[in-house]
């Protein structure tokens, strides 16, 4: 048996730079000589472009070394990237578990399915995990970095497999398909006695087509159900495997840090490896000490007649203050999570660099080197 690949999952709310951080971790790993894959969900495809590719596909694509021209990275490993497409992944899963090609087509063409596979809350999270499971078993990587979809609460990601199977197996929908089933779980005994009437009511309410599409979907899906459920269980157990490390990406703002603390408190209830926080977009200090700051201020105050120079120095002091503010928030996060045995890392990444080509991304990734073995 080949060794299990390491997996790093980056979670976090929207706007914290998860995609960039994931790519940087991938590069750091490739620089250390490891065979690496980055799975991203970046819809803007900006990252694909920065990696020298026009677009990314739903399967791993190798990042050409030529993408690194202009900087000597000394990369000894390899770097692949792919984009997660929820619908394609879902479609493949249906094809895999359907008893026949015909049955698969019936589901894929069902308008309710088309809605569920693309729009349903949680399907995006689940399909990211599903794809990870598939890639992990079919390819031979040392490290897979997963960039998760942005979530209001990062926790959605962990509960996604369960939520999706619960939804699909929900009694009421099965009951619509097979009215003879025991429906005491519905808590609606009047309907228990007259299911046909309910269906009739629904038809007059929302239209014949939608009810038919719904019932067709669930009767077709019934055959897939057991395969789907055991798969979801496997995917869920993958999350708690010891090779899978979770990092929470956050930024030094009050809301983001509070969310990170909340997430951390919830995580204790899950059997997963929480490996640390990655604090992104941290402002660097502009001056090295308070003595220097005092001197700079003194000098600035002498500059009454030179407005341009005065403004620019004032601005450097403003930026410097932001760095001190960030430091306070990082210390606050540190005190809030200190009491726990789980180790964590805080990384200071420079904000004032454009991360749109591989060379700067490689430089950025140096700060993340500690994460990758």
């Amino acid at each position: 048996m080949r060794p299990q690949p390491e997996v790093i999952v980056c979670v976090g709310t929207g706007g914290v730079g998860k995609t960039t951080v994931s790519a940087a971790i991938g590069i750091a790993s490739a620089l250390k000589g490891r065979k690496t894959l980055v799975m991203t969900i970046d819809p803007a495809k900006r990252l694909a472009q920065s990696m020298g590719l026009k677009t990314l596909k739903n399967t791993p694509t190798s990042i050409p070394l030529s993408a690194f021209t202009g900087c000597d990275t000394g990369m000894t490993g390899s770097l692949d990237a792919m984009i997660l497409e929820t619908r394609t992944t879902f479609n493949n899963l249906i094809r895999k578990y359907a008893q026949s090609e015909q049955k698969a087509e019936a589901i894929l063409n069902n308008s309710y399915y088309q809605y569920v596979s693309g729009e349903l809350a949680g399907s995006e999270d689940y399909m990211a995990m599903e794809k990870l499971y598939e890639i992990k078993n079919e390819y031979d990587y040392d490290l897979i970095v997963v960039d998760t979809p942005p979530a209001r609460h990062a926790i959605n990601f962990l509960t996604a497999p369960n939520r999706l199977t619960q939804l699909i197996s929900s009694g009421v929908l099965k009951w619509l398909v097979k009215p003879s089933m025991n429906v005491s779980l519905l808590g609606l005994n009047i309907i228990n006695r007259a299911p046909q009437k309910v269906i009739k009511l629904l038809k007059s309410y929302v239209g014949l087509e939608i009810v038919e599409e719904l019932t067709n979907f669930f009767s077709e899906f019934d055959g897939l159900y057991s395969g789907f459920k055991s798969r979801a269980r496997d995917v869920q157990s993958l999350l708690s495997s010891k090779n899978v490390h979770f990092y929470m990406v956050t930024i030094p703002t009050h809301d983001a840090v509070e969310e990170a603390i909340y997430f951390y408190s919830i995580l204790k209830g899950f059997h997963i490896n929480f490996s640390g926080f990655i604090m992104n977009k941290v402002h660097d200090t502009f001056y090295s000490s308070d003595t220097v700051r005092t001197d700079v201020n003194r000098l600035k105050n002498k500059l009454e007649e030179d407005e341009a120079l005065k403004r620019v120095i004032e601005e450097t002091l403003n930026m410097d203050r932001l760095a001190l503010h960030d430091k306070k928030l990082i210390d606050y996060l540190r005190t809030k999570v200190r009491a726990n045995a789980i180790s964590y890392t805080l990384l200071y990444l420079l904000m004032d660099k454009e991360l749109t080509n591989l060379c700067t991304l490689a430089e950025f990734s140096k700060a993340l080197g500690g994460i990758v073995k």
Partner: protein
Amino acid sequence: MLEELFKSRIIFVTGKGGVGKSTITTAMGIFLKSAGRKPLIVEFAPDKSIEHIFHIKAEPYRETEITRNLFYFNISADEALAEYIRRQLILDILSKFVLSTKFYRHISNTAPGLKELVAVGKLYDLEKKRDDNGKHLYDPIIVDAPQLGKFVSFVKTPQTVMKMFRIGPVKKEAEKVYHLIDSGKCSVAIVSTPDEMAVTEAVEAQKELAEIQQPVIRAFFLNMTVSGRISIMEPRYYRQRLEELASKQTVHESIAHAVQRLLNYAQMEHRAIDWFNSRVKNIPVVTLPFVETPDSDLFIAESLSIQLTAIGGAAL
């Protein structure tokens, strides 16, 4: 330059995550209120960014008057659906019964788009509200909308639902909301930061929204810009000036280094703004300064509302 935007009945504020969408939404609200109008700020649960900015705890599913003539509503999709069911099932006892069943909970989680539809539909109700004199109760409604990646599917919710439900009250509800969005009374304001990744996304959003025609983008906001506040001159100029002035070599070196970094940053920003301006035609681009008081988001929003007064005040 923002006349068209502020004439709208509903303004959807969107943008990439982390660009200051909620702050700009709040700034618009404060500005319009001080211009004598009665704006209502709306956000969708579970988000509570606006509540955090104002340090308030709003009443659940109800308008809250934050300060005189500035209102807030947090739309929860669950509440909106329950309200919809209550309205459909006129008998109160019956609706109470339905809402308490597992049957309802399952349906509400699986019915395609229903929750999203009634959440957007709540905007329709709020837009229709009139005072005793027949005037709009809220003018305008400013929506802290979902972020860019999800915005198009958000405003397309009524169309999606109309495609699925071909008859019945759900279809009627969808049509009603669709007509409001399609009426020309709604606008989009896109917020971005002046960095390459964010402006690229904003430009791409322009293409995507052009396909659905309504609502129309009526303004771009480039938030958190630093470069506008300093004169971009050759670093050599600043260096020379410092050498003439500095009494201590260490200070001179520190400042020169800091100034150099700031100028690099400002130049990068300039490039992104120029690139962006070259790709946006006939839509106003408003540049808003970076406000460095990170401890108070309300202070930032208030400062930005003053900026809006300076550029948009004449229009009102």
